[in-house]
């Protein structure tokens, strides 16, 4: 998070803009927005020193609904844009918002490298296991038998396991949250933002329009039976063998975050041409 002194006594409402979300009634992302503003208030972040960066999809609409600086870029590239921002402006708190299509499919390569680099930012993926904005196609986390117009009878493909991949790629903080529990989600986001390095929070956020079955998530989620570990092997075993509905912080690493090497200018511009002189 930002090294700038936070402002005190902030209310969640201070972090909300007056732009009305385009989300469907009942969408899990409303609660994610609520968790964002609660977490930001809890941390007392200065909105002008906080940037929410996103790509394309329903979840990626979130920046404009906050009162922070925001960037709603192209599909799949939010982490790259946020990386350029954070390494050139380490003073800012950078939160990246994405979805399962944006983050795991078109943006999959950037996900690996963001974990590997371990730059101090928080990556929130609202996973609803479907492309909502384009009306119901399968994403990398969709179950193999989920029938869609694009994949009649289902894709037959095993879903991607984002938490394990994050861990294997070097993410320094891995958590799973459920949008229907905004207080718990806000608490996880607070910890994620405070944790140095690259923090990854997967939020199960139901798409009630194209995945009405996901309304059942409310009864399926449960707190992780044990607290977070700092041992990546242990964390990987737990995540690979759990039922996918363990909620909580699952891994807290101690890898040193990437520190941008930005030194003060040591030479005058006129010095640079010296190498060219005959």
């Amino acid at each position, binding site marked *: 998070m930002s090294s700038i002194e936070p402002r005190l006594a902030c209310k969640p409402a201070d972090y909300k803009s007056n732009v009305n979300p385009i989300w469907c009634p009942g969408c899990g992302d409303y609660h994610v927005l609520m968790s964002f503003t609660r977490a930001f208030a809890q941390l007392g972040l200065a909105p002008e020193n906080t940037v929410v960066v996103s790509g394309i999809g329903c979840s990626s609409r979130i920046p404009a609904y906050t009162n922070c600086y925001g*960037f*709603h870029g192209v599909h799949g590239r939010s982490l*790259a844009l946020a990386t350029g921002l954070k390494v*050139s402006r380490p003073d800012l708190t950078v939160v990246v918002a994405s979805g399962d299509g944006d983050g795991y499919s078109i943006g999959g*390569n950037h996900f690996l490298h963001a974990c590997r680099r371990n730059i101090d930012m928080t990556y929130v993926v609202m996973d609803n296991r479907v492309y909502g904005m384009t009306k119901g196609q399968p994403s990398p986390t969709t179950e193999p038998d989920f029938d869609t117009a694009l994949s009649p009878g289902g894709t037959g493909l095993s879903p991607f396991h984002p938490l394990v991949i994050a861990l294997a790629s070097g993410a320094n903080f891995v958590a799973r949250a459920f949008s229907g529990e905004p207080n718990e989600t806000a608490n996880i986001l607070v910890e994620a933002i405070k944790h140095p390095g690259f923090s990854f929070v997967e939020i199960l956020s139901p798409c009630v329009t194209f995945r009405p079955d996901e309304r059942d998530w409310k009864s399926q989620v449960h707190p992780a039976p044990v607290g977070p570990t700092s041992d990546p092997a242990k964390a990987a075993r737990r995540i690979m063998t759990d039922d996918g509905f363990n909620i909580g912080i699952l891994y807290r690493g101690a890898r040193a975050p990437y520190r941008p090497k930005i030194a003060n200018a040591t030479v005058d511009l006129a010095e*640079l*041409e010296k190498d*060219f002189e005959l």
Partner: protein
Amino acid sequence: MPNAESLSVAIIGSGGAGALTAGNMLLEAACAAGWHGLMTRTVGPQIRGGEAAALIRLATHPIDCMADRFDLMIGIDWLNANRFGAEIEVAASSLIVSDPRGGDLPTVVTRAGARVVELPLKEMAKEIPGGRPNMIALGIAARLLGLGEEPLIRVITKQLASKGQGAIDASCAGLKAGFAAAANLDFGVTLASPKPSTAKRWLVSGNETTGLGAIRGGVRFAAAYPITPASEILEWLAPNLAKVGGSLFQAEDELAAINMIIGASYGGTPALTATSGPGLSLMIEALGLATAAEVPIVVIDVMRAGPSTGIPTKSEQADLNIAVYGLHGDAPHLVVAPQSVSDCLFTTQWAVYLAEALQTSAIVLSDQFVGQAVAAIDRPADVAFIGQRARATEIAGTYQRYAIAAGGVSPMAIPGTRGGQYTADGLTHNERGTPTSSENDHSRQLDKRRSKLDSFAYGDHWATIEGDGDLAVITWGSLTGAVREAIDRLRHSGMNLRLIAPRLLLPIQPERLKAALAGVKRALVVEQSHGAQFHRYLRAHYDLPSDVRVLNRPGPLPIRPSEIVEAIMGWRT
């Protein structure tokens, strides 16, 4: 012996023979002694063991293109020379120095009927402990061109300092053996003495001057993904950005590189990336984002032969279409093209200045020839173009990031500015930045982005315009030097021609080109593109005289001044 104002030499050997090392030394020594010079390399795709040739032109005056043919060619071996035979044209009057054990002469030599002298370069090198035939070739070239030993010994001592005294001694012994062997050769011509000059001289590549131009223009962040022939820009920037308080970051791919610079620029740091055609193709979507979100960025495209992987190590001017038309939607942006090694500095600096002033994306169309050519040039004059972005600092009320303002440019709030919070968006947005699908907001913001580019005063830098004849040669980018040389030759024979080379390709400047063409009856368009992309671009946007001819060819064979001369001489009215 007659003096020549310009002489060209090719030193050829398979990769590892040291032809490029010898060429670099010859160029540096000649330029330290006061001559102007230009060196290009022709290399194959192999990292080691392929063909290699150092192509050097030395002259008493500034030069921005290679000559029509080589006066002297030294073959350490000819193993792979036929692969690039068309690039090493010689004449009957040329002198070829060939090691008899270096393989068969390339057909370009036998066809021209050039004079061939055989010298056992490898055998001679074996007589020197640690000796290498490339240093003998260097000595021969230096002696025949009219250089003394001293400047070469200085260069050898400097360039081989890290390899120890033994390597220096062996190279100097090879050099002297080459000098001695050349004493018996009749080259028939020597390079005229350089004109005395007090100008500060640089020995640089266009990729290096591009890097310096970027920093001078204000760039303090670069994202990098390696690609031939642009990597040298990034490799020059990496240490030099750090010296001036900036940084370079290696991206996982070109998609990431361009989005990284958008992020950095959004955060207030002028930012750039450099790539070639394949990378530019990947960056196009995000170039549209930067244009729509009005985030200034600069992308250098060092063009190589395409499409697809094409010929990565060789030049072409065929990315004009993608640079000008590649963006989807109506996305007004800047496209500029440097015209020489020296001009890479100015044009890149200017591009940063324009991108920052106009809050849009700028593409700089350099190419492999100008980017990787090493030239001895007079130090370019300093220019005052330093990127300055209109910033919103004191904000009262609701901040309107995309306010419709006179001139189209609206002050940009940088994160950290209290009250300036907004969301930059690639979605059509209103003045506040909020997404909208309203026809009115869409057309107003399109108008805004168009008007800021159209109403800007670009000054005389928009084009190089020289001469006032009624026959104009219209060209662009790195071909400007060859066209200028052709026009100079024809001027000496009494023909008055006009050179028009736009440096600013987007936004188009129809009124200014119209003025430049006043009185022109015929125009010859010269470009290195199979599809005549520049000619089509001119046809699409400008009124040309009724009588137009096109001299176009794809890469990698450079268009030589003599071909331009012939095209003009053969065009009788």
